[in-house]
Protein backbone atom coordinates (compact mmCIF):
# COMPACT_ATOMS: atom_id res chain seq x y z
CA UNK A 1 0.00 0.00 0.00
CA UNK A 2 2.77 2.42 0.96
CA UNK A 3 4.65 1.44 -2.20
CA UNK A 4 1.51 2.04 -4.22
CA UNK A 5 1.34 5.60 -2.89
CA UNK A 6 5.04 6.34 -3.17
CA UNK A 7 5.38 4.96 -6.69
CA UNK A 8 2.74 7.35 -7.96
CA UNK A 9 3.56 10.32 -5.78
CA UNK A 10 3.17 12.78 -8.66
CA UNK A 11 -0.47 11.74 -9.12
CA UNK A 12 -1.11 12.12 -5.40
CA UNK A 13 0.38 15.61 -5.49
CA UNK A 14 -1.93 16.43 -8.39
CA UNK A 15 -4.97 15.32 -6.39
CA UNK A 16 -3.85 17.25 -3.30
CA UNK A 17 -3.15 20.42 -5.29
CA UNK A 18 -6.54 20.14 -6.93
CA UNK A 19 -8.28 19.81 -3.56
CA UNK A 20 -6.34 22.81 -2.20
CA UNK A 21 -7.49 24.83 -5.19
CA UNK A 22 -11.13 23.76 -4.82
CA UNK A 23 -11.03 24.44 -1.07
CA UNK A 24 -9.68 27.95 -1.65
CA UNK A 25 -12.31 28.69 -4.28
CA UNK A 26 -15.14 27.49 -2.05
CA UNK A 27 -14.22 28.79 1.38
CA UNK A 28 -12.07 31.92 0.99
CA UNK A 29 -14.03 35.14 1.27
CA UNK A 30 -11.40 37.30 -0.40
CA UNK A 31 -11.76 37.40 -4.18
CA UNK A 32 -8.01 37.49 -4.86
CA UNK A 33 -7.59 34.33 -2.78
CA UNK A 34 -10.32 32.74 -4.89
CA UNK A 35 -8.36 33.61 -8.02
CA UNK A 36 -5.21 32.11 -6.50
CA UNK A 37 -7.19 28.97 -5.67
CA UNK A 38 -8.42 28.86 -9.27
CA UNK A 39 -4.85 29.03 -10.50
CA UNK A 40 -3.67 26.24 -8.20
CA UNK A 41 -6.58 24.15 -9.46
CA UNK A 42 -5.53 24.66 -13.08
CA UNK A 43 -1.87 24.05 -12.28
CA UNK A 44 -2.72 20.66 -10.80
CA UNK A 45 -4.12 19.61 -14.19
CA UNK A 46 -0.86 20.58 -15.86
CA UNK A 47 1.01 18.38 -13.38
CA UNK A 48 -1.38 15.54 -14.24
CA UNK A 49 -0.76 15.80 -17.98
CA UNK A 50 3.02 16.07 -17.57
CA UNK A 51 3.04 13.06 -15.22
CA UNK A 52 1.20 11.03 -17.86
CA UNK A 53 3.97 11.56 -20.36
CA UNK A 54 7.07 11.23 -18.21
CA UNK A 55 9.21 8.12 -17.89
CA UNK A 56 12.23 7.22 -15.78
CA UNK A 57 15.22 7.29 -18.07
CA UNK A 58 13.14 8.60 -20.96
CA UNK A 59 14.65 10.54 -23.80
CA UNK A 60 13.82 12.99 -26.56
CA UNK A 61 11.66 11.69 -29.41
CA UNK A 62 14.24 12.69 -32.03
CA UNK A 63 15.82 10.26 -34.44
CA UNK A 64 19.59 10.39 -34.24
CA UNK A 65 19.93 8.72 -37.66
CA UNK A 66 18.10 8.92 -40.94
CA UNK A 67 15.41 6.43 -41.96
CA UNK A 68 16.59 3.26 -43.65
CA UNK A 69 19.73 2.82 -41.62
CA UNK A 70 20.00 -0.33 -39.58
CA UNK A 71 21.10 0.58 -36.08
CA UNK A 72 19.14 3.13 -34.09
CA UNK A 73 21.24 4.37 -31.18
CA UNK A 74 18.05 5.19 -29.20
CA UNK A 75 15.39 2.65 -28.28
CA UNK A 76 11.96 3.95 -29.45
CA UNK A 77 10.29 2.67 -26.28
CA UNK A 78 12.39 5.14 -24.27
CA UNK A 79 10.92 8.11 -26.11
CA UNK A 80 8.80 10.48 -24.07
CA UNK A 81 5.48 11.33 -25.70
CA UNK A 82 5.65 15.06 -26.53
CA UNK A 83 1.92 15.53 -27.20
CA UNK A 84 0.80 16.10 -23.56
CA UNK A 85 3.61 18.62 -23.10
CA UNK A 86 2.50 20.53 -26.18
CA UNK A 87 -1.13 20.40 -25.05
CA UNK A 88 -0.07 21.90 -21.74
CA UNK A 89 1.70 24.77 -23.49
CA UNK A 90 -1.70 25.71 -24.91
CA UNK A 91 -3.36 25.12 -21.55
CA UNK A 92 -0.84 27.45 -19.86
CA UNK A 93 -1.73 30.15 -22.38
CA UNK A 94 -5.41 29.62 -21.60
CA UNK A 95 -4.60 29.79 -17.86
CA UNK A 96 -2.76 33.08 -18.26
CA UNK A 97 -5.66 34.51 -20.26
CA UNK A 98 -8.16 33.38 -17.61
CA UNK A 99 -6.01 34.93 -14.89
CA UNK A 100 -5.81 38.16 -16.86
CA UNK A 101 -9.57 38.35 -17.35
CA UNK A 102 -10.20 37.49 -13.68
CA UNK A 103 -7.80 40.18 -12.46
CA UNK A 104 -9.29 42.75 -14.85
CA UNK A 105 -12.74 41.98 -13.46
CA UNK A 106 -11.35 42.30 -9.91
CA UNK A 107 -10.08 45.78 -10.77
CA UNK A 108 -13.59 46.69 -11.98
CA UNK A 109 -15.09 45.32 -8.76
CA UNK A 110 -12.56 47.20 -6.62
CA UNK A 111 -13.32 50.48 -8.39
CA UNK A 112 -17.02 50.00 -7.79
CA UNK A 113 -17.05 48.80 -4.18
CA UNK A 114 -13.65 49.79 -2.82
CA UNK A 115 -13.06 46.32 -1.37
CA UNK A 116 -12.41 42.77 -2.46
CA UNK A 117 -13.98 41.03 0.55
CA UNK A 118 -17.01 39.10 -0.66
CA UNK A 119 -19.11 39.80 2.46
CA UNK A 120 -18.53 43.54 2.18
CA UNK A 121 -19.43 43.55 -1.51
CA UNK A 122 -22.64 41.62 -0.91
CA UNK A 123 -23.53 44.03 1.91
CA UNK A 124 -22.97 47.06 -0.32
CA UNK A 125 -25.05 45.56 -3.12
CA UNK A 126 -28.17 45.57 -1.00
Amino acid at each position, binding site marked *: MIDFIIERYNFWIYVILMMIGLYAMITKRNLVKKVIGMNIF*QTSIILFFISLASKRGGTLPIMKQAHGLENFPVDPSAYINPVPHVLMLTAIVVMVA*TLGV*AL*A*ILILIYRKYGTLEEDEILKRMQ
Partner: protein
Amino acid sequence: MTDQAPILIIIIPLMFALMTPLIGWIRKNLCYPWVLLSLTLSALSSFIILRTVLLRGIISYKLGNWDPPWGIEYAIDHLNALMLVIITVISLIVAVYSKKSIQREKPDKIVHFYTIFLLQVTGFLGMVVSGDLFNIYVFLEIASLAGYALIAIGDERAPYASFRYVVIGTIGASFYLLSVGYIYSVTGSLNIADVARLLPELYNSNVILTALVFMFAGIAIKMAMFPVHAWAPNAYTHAPSAVSALVAPLMTKVAAYLMIRVSFTVFKPHYIIDVISLNSFISWIGAAGIIAGSIFAIAQNNLKKMLSYSVVAQIGYIALGIGLANSYGLTGAVLHIVNEAFTKGCVFLAAGGIVYKLGGCNIADFKNLFRKMPFTMTAFTIGAFSLIGIPPTCGFFSKLYLILGSIEADQWTFVGVLLFSSILNVVYFFRVIQTAAFEKQMSDYSREDPYEKVPMDEVPLTMLIPIQIAALGILLCGIFNSEIISSVIKYAIPPGL
Protein backbone atom coordinates in the same frame (compact mmCIF):
# COMPACT_ATOMS: atom_id res chain seq x y z
CA MET B 1 -13.33 27.86 -52.33
CA THR B 2 -16.29 25.84 -51.07
CA ASP B 3 -13.93 23.02 -50.10
CA GLN B 4 -12.30 25.39 -47.65
CA ALA B 5 -15.60 26.45 -46.06
CA PRO B 6 -15.04 24.46 -42.81
CA ILE B 7 -11.89 26.44 -42.00
CA LEU B 8 -13.13 29.73 -43.46
CA ILE B 9 -16.02 29.72 -41.02
CA ILE B 10 -13.45 29.96 -38.17
CA ILE B 11 -10.83 32.09 -39.92
CA ILE B 12 -13.22 34.83 -41.05
CA PRO B 13 -14.55 35.90 -37.63
CA LEU B 14 -11.13 35.37 -35.99
CA MET B 15 -9.21 37.53 -38.47
CA PHE B 16 -11.96 40.14 -38.56
CA ALA B 17 -11.90 40.22 -34.74
CA LEU B 18 -8.15 40.81 -34.69
CA MET B 19 -8.51 43.64 -37.20
CA THR B 20 -11.47 45.30 -35.48
CA PRO B 21 -9.31 47.43 -33.10
CA LEU B 22 -7.42 48.73 -36.13
CA ILE B 23 -10.65 49.59 -37.94
CA GLY B 24 -11.95 51.21 -34.76
CA TRP B 25 -8.77 53.22 -34.48
CA ILE B 26 -9.24 54.57 -38.01
CA ARG B 27 -12.92 55.32 -37.53
CA LYS B 28 -15.21 54.17 -34.77
CA ASN B 29 -18.28 54.01 -37.00
CA LEU B 30 -16.67 51.52 -39.36
CA CYS B 31 -16.71 48.78 -36.69
CA TYR B 32 -20.41 48.07 -37.13
CA PRO B 33 -20.41 47.44 -40.92
CA TRP B 34 -17.12 45.54 -40.47
CA VAL B 35 -18.72 43.13 -37.99
CA LEU B 36 -21.80 42.75 -40.17
CA LEU B 37 -19.62 41.94 -43.18
CA SER B 38 -17.71 39.33 -41.22
CA LEU B 39 -20.81 37.64 -39.83
CA THR B 40 -22.54 37.71 -43.23
CA LEU B 41 -19.54 35.94 -44.74
CA SER B 42 -19.48 33.29 -42.04
CA ALA B 43 -23.26 32.85 -42.33
CA LEU B 44 -22.73 32.33 -46.04
CA SER B 45 -20.07 29.68 -45.43
CA SER B 46 -22.30 27.96 -42.88
CA PHE B 47 -25.05 27.68 -45.50
CA ILE B 48 -22.52 26.34 -48.01
CA ILE B 49 -21.47 23.73 -45.43
CA LEU B 50 -25.07 22.75 -44.73
CA ARG B 51 -25.76 22.38 -48.44
CA THR B 52 -22.62 20.28 -48.97
CA VAL B 53 -23.49 18.04 -46.02
CA LEU B 54 -27.04 17.56 -47.30
CA LEU B 55 -25.84 16.71 -50.80
CA ARG B 56 -22.67 14.75 -50.13
CA GLY B 57 -22.78 13.59 -46.52
CA ILE B 58 -20.20 14.06 -43.78
CA ILE B 59 -17.33 16.48 -44.43
CA SER B 60 -13.90 15.71 -43.03
CA TYR B 61 -11.46 18.60 -43.30
CA LYS B 62 -7.81 17.93 -42.48
CA LEU B 63 -6.16 20.96 -40.97
CA GLY B 64 -2.78 21.57 -42.63
CA ASN B 65 -3.31 18.29 -44.53
CA TRP B 66 -2.18 16.15 -41.58
CA ASP B 67 -4.01 12.84 -41.45
CA PRO B 68 -6.70 12.64 -38.72
CA PRO B 69 -5.38 10.69 -35.73
CA TRP B 70 -2.28 12.92 -35.64
CA GLY B 71 -3.48 16.18 -37.09
CA ILE B 72 -6.61 18.12 -36.18
CA GLU B 73 -9.69 17.11 -38.10
CA TYR B 74 -12.78 19.24 -38.61
CA ALA B 75 -15.58 16.71 -38.91
CA ILE B 76 -18.97 18.07 -39.90
CA ASP B 77 -22.09 15.95 -40.02
CA HIS B 78 -25.75 17.00 -40.09
CA LEU B 79 -25.88 18.00 -36.42
CA ASN B 80 -22.78 20.22 -36.69
CA ALA B 81 -24.01 21.83 -39.89
CA LEU B 82 -27.37 22.63 -38.30
CA MET B 83 -25.67 24.12 -35.23
CA LEU B 84 -23.37 26.24 -37.44
CA VAL B 85 -26.35 27.73 -39.27
CA ILE B 86 -28.11 28.50 -35.98
CA ILE B 87 -25.02 30.16 -34.46
CA THR B 88 -24.20 32.32 -37.47
CA VAL B 89 -27.82 33.37 -38.06
CA ILE B 90 -28.48 34.28 -34.41
CA SER B 91 -25.19 36.14 -34.06
CA LEU B 92 -25.87 38.06 -37.27
CA ILE B 93 -29.33 39.03 -35.99
CA VAL B 94 -27.84 40.16 -32.66
CA ALA B 95 -25.04 42.06 -34.41
CA VAL B 96 -27.56 44.05 -36.48
CA TYR B 97 -29.50 44.76 -33.30
CA SER B 98 -26.45 45.73 -31.23
CA LYS B 99 -25.82 49.08 -32.96
CA LYS B 100 -28.30 51.31 -31.12
CA SER B 101 -28.44 49.16 -28.02
CA ILE B 102 -24.71 49.27 -27.29
CA GLN B 103 -24.55 52.97 -28.24
CA ARG B 104 -27.08 53.66 -25.52
CA GLU B 105 -25.64 51.34 -22.87
CA LYS B 106 -21.85 51.52 -23.40
CA PRO B 107 -20.98 54.32 -25.88
CA ASP B 108 -17.28 54.37 -24.93
CA LYS B 109 -16.69 50.64 -25.35
CA ILE B 110 -17.96 50.08 -28.91
CA VAL B 111 -14.64 48.98 -30.41
CA HIS B 112 -13.82 46.56 -27.57
CA PHE B 113 -17.36 45.25 -27.61
CA TYR B 114 -17.26 44.33 -31.29
CA THR B 115 -13.80 42.76 -31.03
CA ILE B 116 -14.86 40.47 -28.22
CA PHE B 117 -18.23 39.86 -29.88
CA LEU B 118 -16.51 38.35 -32.91
CA LEU B 119 -14.14 36.31 -30.70
CA GLN B 120 -17.16 34.92 -28.89
CA VAL B 121 -18.75 33.84 -32.18
CA THR B 122 -15.41 32.29 -33.21
CA GLY B 123 -15.39 30.27 -30.01
CA PHE B 124 -18.93 28.97 -30.56
CA LEU B 125 -18.27 28.04 -34.18
CA GLY B 126 -14.97 26.36 -33.31
CA MET B 127 -16.51 24.20 -30.61
CA VAL B 128 -19.09 22.97 -33.08
CA VAL B 129 -16.89 22.49 -36.11
CA SER B 130 -13.94 20.76 -34.45
CA GLY B 131 -13.53 17.00 -34.33
CA ASP B 132 -10.66 17.01 -31.85
CA LEU B 133 -11.23 16.84 -28.10
CA PHE B 134 -8.43 19.21 -27.11
CA ASN B 135 -9.24 21.65 -29.89
CA ILE B 136 -12.79 21.78 -28.54
CA TYR B 137 -11.34 22.70 -25.11
CA VAL B 138 -9.39 25.59 -26.61
CA PHE B 139 -12.46 26.94 -28.41
CA LEU B 140 -14.57 26.38 -25.28
CA GLU B 141 -12.15 28.61 -23.39
CA ILE B 142 -12.12 31.24 -26.15
CA ALA B 143 -15.91 31.37 -26.02
CA SER B 144 -15.96 31.44 -22.21
CA LEU B 145 -13.26 34.11 -21.83
CA ALA B 146 -14.99 36.31 -24.38
CA GLY B 147 -18.24 35.69 -22.53
CA TYR B 148 -16.74 36.73 -19.16
CA ALA B 149 -15.45 39.96 -20.67
CA LEU B 150 -18.71 40.77 -22.47
CA ILE B 151 -20.78 40.15 -19.34
CA ALA B 152 -18.46 42.27 -17.18
CA ILE B 153 -19.15 45.44 -19.21
CA GLY B 154 -22.83 45.39 -18.18
CA ASP B 155 -24.51 47.38 -15.40
CA GLU B 156 -23.01 48.07 -11.97
CA ARG B 157 -23.54 44.56 -10.60
CA ALA B 158 -22.19 42.90 -13.73
CA PRO B 159 -18.51 42.59 -12.67
CA TYR B 160 -19.38 40.58 -9.59
CA ALA B 161 -21.77 38.33 -11.54
CA SER B 162 -19.08 37.89 -14.16
CA PHE B 163 -16.46 37.04 -11.51
CA ARG B 164 -18.62 34.23 -10.17
CA TYR B 165 -19.04 32.99 -13.72
CA VAL B 166 -15.23 33.07 -14.18
CA VAL B 167 -14.64 30.92 -11.09
CA ILE B 168 -17.39 28.39 -11.78
CA GLY B 169 -16.77 28.35 -15.53
CA THR B 170 -13.08 27.68 -15.02
CA ILE B 171 -13.88 24.69 -12.82
CA GLY B 172 -16.14 23.38 -15.60
CA ALA B 173 -13.54 23.85 -18.32
CA SER B 174 -10.82 22.31 -16.12
CA PHE B 175 -12.98 19.23 -15.51
CA TYR B 176 -13.38 18.90 -19.26
CA LEU B 177 -9.59 19.18 -19.76
CA LEU B 178 -8.97 16.61 -17.04
CA SER B 179 -11.36 14.22 -18.74
CA VAL B 180 -9.54 14.70 -22.04
CA GLY B 181 -6.34 13.78 -20.17
CA TYR B 182 -7.87 10.57 -18.85
CA ILE B 183 -9.14 9.61 -22.30
CA TYR B 184 -5.74 10.38 -23.82
CA SER B 185 -3.95 8.29 -21.20
CA VAL B 186 -5.77 5.11 -22.20
CA THR B 187 -6.42 5.62 -25.92
CA GLY B 188 -3.47 7.79 -26.93
CA SER B 189 -5.70 9.76 -29.26
CA LEU B 190 -7.57 13.05 -29.25
CA ASN B 191 -9.52 12.70 -32.47
CA ILE B 192 -13.20 12.05 -31.74
CA ALA B 193 -13.67 9.44 -34.48
CA ASP B 194 -10.48 7.67 -33.46
CA VAL B 195 -11.36 7.75 -29.76
CA ALA B 196 -14.82 6.40 -30.55
CA ARG B 197 -13.18 3.52 -32.43
CA LEU B 198 -10.73 2.72 -29.61
CA LEU B 199 -12.98 3.14 -26.59
CA PRO B 200 -15.40 0.14 -26.82
CA GLU B 201 -12.62 -2.30 -25.83
CA LEU B 202 -11.95 -0.27 -22.69
CA TYR B 203 -15.51 0.11 -21.45
CA ASN B 204 -14.89 -1.90 -18.29
CA SER B 205 -11.99 0.35 -17.28
CA ASN B 206 -12.37 2.70 -14.33
CA VAL B 207 -10.33 5.35 -16.13
CA ILE B 208 -13.04 5.67 -18.77
CA LEU B 209 -15.73 5.93 -16.11
CA THR B 210 -13.76 8.73 -14.38
CA ALA B 211 -13.26 10.47 -17.70
CA LEU B 212 -16.98 10.29 -18.46
CA VAL B 213 -17.97 11.65 -15.05
CA PHE B 214 -15.54 14.58 -15.29
CA MET B 215 -16.65 15.33 -18.82
CA PHE B 216 -20.34 15.39 -17.92
CA ALA B 217 -19.70 17.50 -14.83
CA GLY B 218 -17.70 19.99 -16.89
CA ILE B 219 -20.25 20.23 -19.69
CA ALA B 220 -23.15 20.42 -17.22
CA ILE B 221 -21.54 23.48 -15.59
CA LYS B 222 -21.07 25.17 -18.97
CA MET B 223 -24.62 24.24 -19.93
CA ALA B 224 -26.13 25.75 -16.73
CA MET B 225 -27.90 22.49 -15.91
CA PHE B 226 -30.07 22.70 -12.82
CA PRO B 227 -27.96 21.99 -9.71
CA VAL B 228 -24.93 23.85 -11.14
CA HIS B 229 -26.84 26.72 -12.77
CA ALA B 230 -26.12 29.33 -10.07
CA TRP B 231 -23.82 31.46 -12.22
CA ALA B 232 -26.25 31.85 -15.12
CA PRO B 233 -29.17 34.01 -13.93
CA ASN B 234 -27.07 36.86 -12.51
CA ALA B 235 -24.62 36.84 -15.40
CA TYR B 236 -27.39 37.03 -18.02
CA THR B 237 -29.40 39.61 -16.09
CA HIS B 238 -26.63 42.15 -15.58
CA ALA B 239 -24.98 41.83 -18.99
CA PRO B 240 -25.74 44.47 -21.68
CA SER B 241 -28.91 43.57 -23.62
CA ALA B 242 -27.09 42.67 -26.83
CA VAL B 243 -24.76 40.38 -24.86
CA SER B 244 -27.59 38.59 -23.07
CA ALA B 245 -29.22 38.04 -26.46
CA LEU B 246 -25.99 36.52 -27.82
CA VAL B 247 -24.71 34.52 -24.85
CA ALA B 248 -27.95 33.24 -23.31
CA PRO B 249 -29.28 31.49 -26.43
CA LEU B 250 -25.95 30.25 -27.76
CA MET B 251 -23.49 29.36 -24.96
CA THR B 252 -25.85 26.93 -23.26
CA LYS B 253 -26.99 25.45 -26.58
CA VAL B 254 -23.46 24.86 -27.83
CA ALA B 255 -22.70 23.10 -24.54
CA ALA B 256 -25.87 21.05 -25.03
CA TYR B 257 -24.61 20.11 -28.49
CA LEU B 258 -21.35 19.02 -26.84
CA MET B 259 -23.29 16.83 -24.44
CA ILE B 260 -25.09 15.11 -27.34
CA ARG B 261 -21.75 14.65 -29.10
CA VAL B 262 -20.10 13.16 -26.01
CA SER B 263 -22.97 10.83 -25.11
CA PHE B 264 -23.63 9.46 -28.56
CA THR B 265 -20.46 9.87 -30.63
CA VAL B 266 -17.43 9.81 -28.32
CA PHE B 267 -19.02 7.20 -26.09
CA LYS B 268 -21.37 4.79 -27.77
CA PRO B 269 -25.05 4.85 -26.72
CA HIS B 270 -24.62 1.26 -25.57
CA TYR B 271 -22.14 2.36 -22.88
CA ILE B 272 -24.20 5.30 -21.65
CA ILE B 273 -27.50 3.38 -21.62
CA ASP B 274 -26.72 -0.25 -20.78
CA VAL B 275 -23.37 -0.28 -19.00
CA ILE B 276 -23.65 2.61 -16.55
CA SER B 277 -27.20 3.92 -17.26
CA LEU B 278 -26.10 7.52 -16.95
CA ASN B 279 -28.95 8.54 -19.24
CA SER B 280 -31.71 8.02 -16.69
CA PHE B 281 -29.72 10.16 -14.23
CA ILE B 282 -29.45 12.93 -16.83
CA SER B 283 -33.16 12.85 -17.60
CA TRP B 284 -34.12 13.00 -13.89
CA ILE B 285 -31.77 15.96 -13.40
CA GLY B 286 -33.32 17.53 -16.49
CA ALA B 287 -36.84 17.00 -15.15
CA ALA B 288 -35.84 18.52 -11.79
CA GLY B 289 -34.31 21.45 -13.67
CA ILE B 290 -37.52 22.07 -15.65
CA ILE B 291 -39.62 22.34 -12.49
CA ALA B 292 -37.04 24.26 -10.41
CA GLY B 293 -36.15 26.71 -13.20
CA SER B 294 -39.83 27.45 -13.89
CA ILE B 295 -40.61 27.99 -10.20
CA PHE B 296 -37.62 30.32 -9.76
CA ALA B 297 -38.76 32.18 -12.88
CA ILE B 298 -42.22 32.75 -11.40
CA ALA B 299 -40.64 34.36 -8.32
CA GLN B 300 -38.75 37.04 -10.30
CA ASN B 301 -39.82 40.66 -10.77
CA ASN B 302 -37.10 41.53 -13.26
CA LEU B 303 -37.92 40.43 -16.82
CA LYS B 304 -34.33 39.58 -17.77
CA LYS B 305 -33.84 37.55 -14.60
CA MET B 306 -37.08 35.72 -15.26
CA LEU B 307 -35.90 34.87 -18.77
CA SER B 308 -32.53 33.72 -17.41
CA TYR B 309 -34.23 31.24 -15.09
CA SER B 310 -36.30 30.20 -18.08
CA VAL B 311 -32.99 29.34 -19.82
CA VAL B 312 -32.23 26.97 -16.92
CA ALA B 313 -35.66 25.37 -17.33
CA GLN B 314 -35.29 25.00 -21.10
CA ILE B 315 -31.86 23.38 -20.67
CA GLY B 316 -33.78 20.88 -18.54
CA TYR B 317 -35.92 19.98 -21.56
CA ILE B 318 -32.84 19.36 -23.70
CA ALA B 319 -31.19 17.27 -20.97
CA LEU B 320 -34.43 15.30 -20.58
CA GLY B 321 -34.48 14.60 -24.32
CA ILE B 322 -30.82 13.51 -24.31
CA GLY B 323 -31.45 11.30 -21.28
CA LEU B 324 -34.44 9.57 -22.86
CA ALA B 325 -31.98 8.28 -25.48
CA ASN B 326 -34.57 7.15 -27.99
CA SER B 327 -35.15 8.52 -31.44
CA TYR B 328 -38.19 10.65 -30.49
CA GLY B 329 -36.50 12.04 -27.39
CA LEU B 330 -33.31 12.99 -29.20
CA THR B 331 -35.26 14.50 -32.13
CA GLY B 332 -37.11 16.57 -29.55
CA ALA B 333 -33.84 17.62 -27.89
CA VAL B 334 -32.20 18.71 -31.16
CA LEU B 335 -35.37 20.47 -32.35
CA HIS B 336 -35.55 22.15 -28.95
CA ILE B 337 -31.98 23.43 -29.38
CA VAL B 338 -33.02 25.03 -32.71
CA ASN B 339 -36.25 26.37 -31.22
CA GLU B 340 -34.63 27.63 -28.03
CA ALA B 341 -31.88 29.49 -29.88
CA PHE B 342 -34.48 31.48 -31.85
CA THR B 343 -36.95 31.83 -28.99
CA LYS B 344 -34.47 32.96 -26.33
CA GLY B 345 -32.86 35.21 -28.93
CA CYS B 346 -36.25 36.75 -29.68
CA VAL B 347 -37.36 37.29 -26.07
CA PHE B 348 -33.97 38.61 -24.92
CA LEU B 349 -33.89 41.00 -27.91
CA ALA B 350 -37.40 42.17 -27.04
CA ALA B 351 -36.35 42.59 -23.38
CA GLY B 352 -33.39 44.65 -24.62
CA GLY B 353 -35.80 46.82 -26.59
CA ILE B 354 -37.89 47.34 -23.48
CA VAL B 355 -34.77 48.28 -21.48
CA TYR B 356 -33.86 50.71 -24.28
CA LYS B 357 -37.18 52.52 -23.98
CA LEU B 358 -38.03 52.16 -20.28
CA GLY B 359 -34.52 52.18 -18.83
CA GLY B 360 -35.19 49.08 -16.78
CA CYS B 361 -37.10 45.85 -16.98
CA ASN B 362 -39.14 45.62 -13.84
CA ILE B 363 -42.34 43.83 -14.81
CA ALA B 364 -44.46 46.23 -12.72
CA ASP B 365 -43.44 49.13 -15.01
CA PHE B 366 -44.76 47.45 -18.14
CA LYS B 367 -48.23 48.93 -17.94
CA ASN B 368 -49.63 49.99 -21.31
CA LEU B 369 -46.58 48.65 -23.07
CA PHE B 370 -48.63 46.93 -25.77
CA ARG B 371 -49.89 50.29 -26.98
CA LYS B 372 -46.51 51.97 -26.72
CA MET B 373 -44.46 49.24 -28.38
CA PRO B 374 -46.92 47.02 -30.28
CA PHE B 375 -44.38 45.36 -32.59
CA THR B 376 -41.82 44.52 -29.93
CA MET B 377 -44.48 43.15 -27.62
CA THR B 378 -46.03 41.08 -30.41
CA ALA B 379 -42.64 39.47 -31.05
CA PHE B 380 -42.24 38.91 -27.31
CA THR B 381 -45.66 37.25 -27.20
CA ILE B 382 -44.74 34.93 -30.06
CA GLY B 383 -41.59 33.98 -28.14
CA ALA B 384 -43.63 33.42 -24.98
CA PHE B 385 -46.08 31.21 -26.92
CA SER B 386 -43.17 29.16 -28.19
CA LEU B 387 -41.80 28.69 -24.66
CA ILE B 388 -45.25 27.68 -23.43
CA GLY B 389 -45.73 25.40 -26.42
CA ILE B 390 -48.68 26.75 -28.38
CA PRO B 391 -48.90 25.70 -32.05
CA PRO B 392 -47.82 26.73 -34.67
CA THR B 393 -44.68 27.93 -32.87
CA CYS B 394 -41.71 25.60 -32.78
CA GLY B 395 -41.93 25.06 -29.02
CA PHE B 396 -45.09 23.00 -29.46
CA PHE B 397 -43.43 20.52 -31.80
CA SER B 398 -40.25 20.02 -29.78
CA LYS B 399 -42.32 19.42 -26.65
CA LEU B 400 -44.54 17.05 -28.62
CA TYR B 401 -41.51 14.99 -29.59
CA LEU B 402 -40.20 15.01 -26.02
CA ILE B 403 -43.59 13.77 -24.77
CA LEU B 404 -43.68 11.06 -27.47
CA GLY B 405 -40.18 10.05 -26.42
CA SER B 406 -41.19 9.84 -22.76
CA ILE B 407 -44.19 7.68 -23.68
CA GLU B 408 -41.98 5.41 -25.75
CA ALA B 409 -39.56 5.06 -22.83
CA ASP B 410 -42.51 4.30 -20.51
CA GLN B 411 -41.60 7.25 -18.31
CA TRP B 412 -45.00 8.67 -17.46
CA THR B 413 -43.51 10.93 -14.76
CA PHE B 414 -41.69 12.88 -17.48
CA VAL B 415 -44.93 13.28 -19.45
CA GLY B 416 -46.45 14.78 -16.31
CA VAL B 417 -43.43 17.04 -15.76
CA LEU B 418 -43.52 18.29 -19.37
CA LEU B 419 -47.24 19.08 -19.22
CA PHE B 420 -47.00 20.66 -15.76
CA SER B 421 -44.07 22.82 -16.88
CA SER B 422 -46.22 24.27 -19.67
CA ILE B 423 -48.66 25.47 -17.02
CA LEU B 424 -45.79 27.03 -15.04
CA ASN B 425 -44.58 28.76 -18.22
CA VAL B 426 -48.09 30.12 -18.75
CA VAL B 427 -48.01 31.54 -15.21
CA TYR B 428 -44.82 33.52 -15.62
CA PHE B 429 -45.31 34.69 -19.19
CA PHE B 430 -48.94 35.69 -18.85
CA ARG B 431 -48.00 37.83 -15.86
CA VAL B 432 -45.86 39.91 -18.22
CA ILE B 433 -48.34 39.90 -21.09
CA GLN B 434 -51.25 40.72 -18.82
CA THR B 435 -49.41 43.64 -17.19
CA ALA B 436 -48.35 44.97 -20.58
CA ALA B 437 -51.69 44.53 -22.32
CA PHE B 438 -54.45 45.15 -19.80
CA GLU B 439 -53.22 47.11 -16.81
CA LYS B 440 -53.35 50.87 -17.10
CA GLN B 441 -51.17 53.48 -15.53
CA MET B 442 -52.73 55.45 -12.66
CA SER B 443 -52.68 58.58 -14.77
CA ASP B 444 -54.94 56.88 -17.33
CA TYR B 445 -57.83 56.65 -14.86
CA SER B 446 -57.85 60.38 -14.34
CA ARG B 447 -58.15 60.97 -18.05
CA GLU B 448 -61.60 61.58 -19.44
CA ASP B 449 -61.38 59.02 -22.18
CA PRO B 450 -59.61 55.88 -20.94
CA TYR B 451 -59.30 54.59 -24.51
CA GLU B 452 -57.51 57.65 -25.71
CA LYS B 453 -54.63 56.68 -27.94
CA VAL B 454 -51.32 56.28 -26.16
CA PRO B 455 -48.59 57.63 -28.45
CA MET B 456 -46.59 54.86 -30.07
CA ASP B 457 -42.99 54.85 -28.93
CA GLU B 458 -41.22 52.03 -30.75
CA VAL B 459 -37.54 51.14 -30.69
CA PRO B 460 -35.43 52.22 -33.72
CA LEU B 461 -35.68 50.17 -36.91
CA THR B 462 -32.22 48.57 -36.58
CA MET B 463 -33.48 47.03 -33.33
CA LEU B 464 -37.03 46.34 -34.43
CA ILE B 465 -36.20 44.41 -37.60
CA PRO B 466 -33.93 41.84 -35.85
CA ILE B 467 -36.61 41.27 -33.22
CA GLN B 468 -39.20 40.65 -35.95
CA ILE B 469 -36.84 38.34 -37.88
CA ALA B 470 -36.23 36.27 -34.74
CA ALA B 471 -39.99 36.03 -34.18
CA LEU B 472 -40.47 35.04 -37.81
CA GLY B 473 -37.76 32.40 -37.31
CA ILE B 474 -39.78 30.87 -34.46
CA LEU B 475 -42.88 30.63 -36.65
CA LEU B 476 -40.98 29.28 -39.66
CA CYS B 477 -39.19 26.64 -37.56
CA GLY B 478 -42.59 25.60 -36.27
CA ILE B 479 -44.33 25.49 -39.66
CA PHE B 480 -41.46 23.70 -41.42
CA ASN B 481 -40.54 21.46 -38.48
CA SER B 482 -41.23 18.25 -40.40
CA GLU B 483 -38.90 19.41 -43.23
CA ILE B 484 -36.16 20.25 -40.72
CA ILE B 485 -36.53 16.87 -39.06
CA SER B 486 -36.74 14.78 -42.23
CA SER B 487 -33.87 16.49 -44.03
CA VAL B 488 -31.43 17.27 -41.20
CA ILE B 489 -32.24 16.07 -37.70
CA LYS B 490 -33.13 12.53 -38.82
CA TYR B 491 -29.50 12.00 -39.85
CA ALA B 492 -28.20 13.50 -36.61
CA ILE B 493 -29.73 10.68 -34.56
CA PRO B 494 -27.13 7.96 -34.05
CA PRO B 495 -28.13 4.65 -35.65
CA GLY B 496 -29.53 2.03 -33.31
CA LEU B 497 -31.59 4.32 -31.09
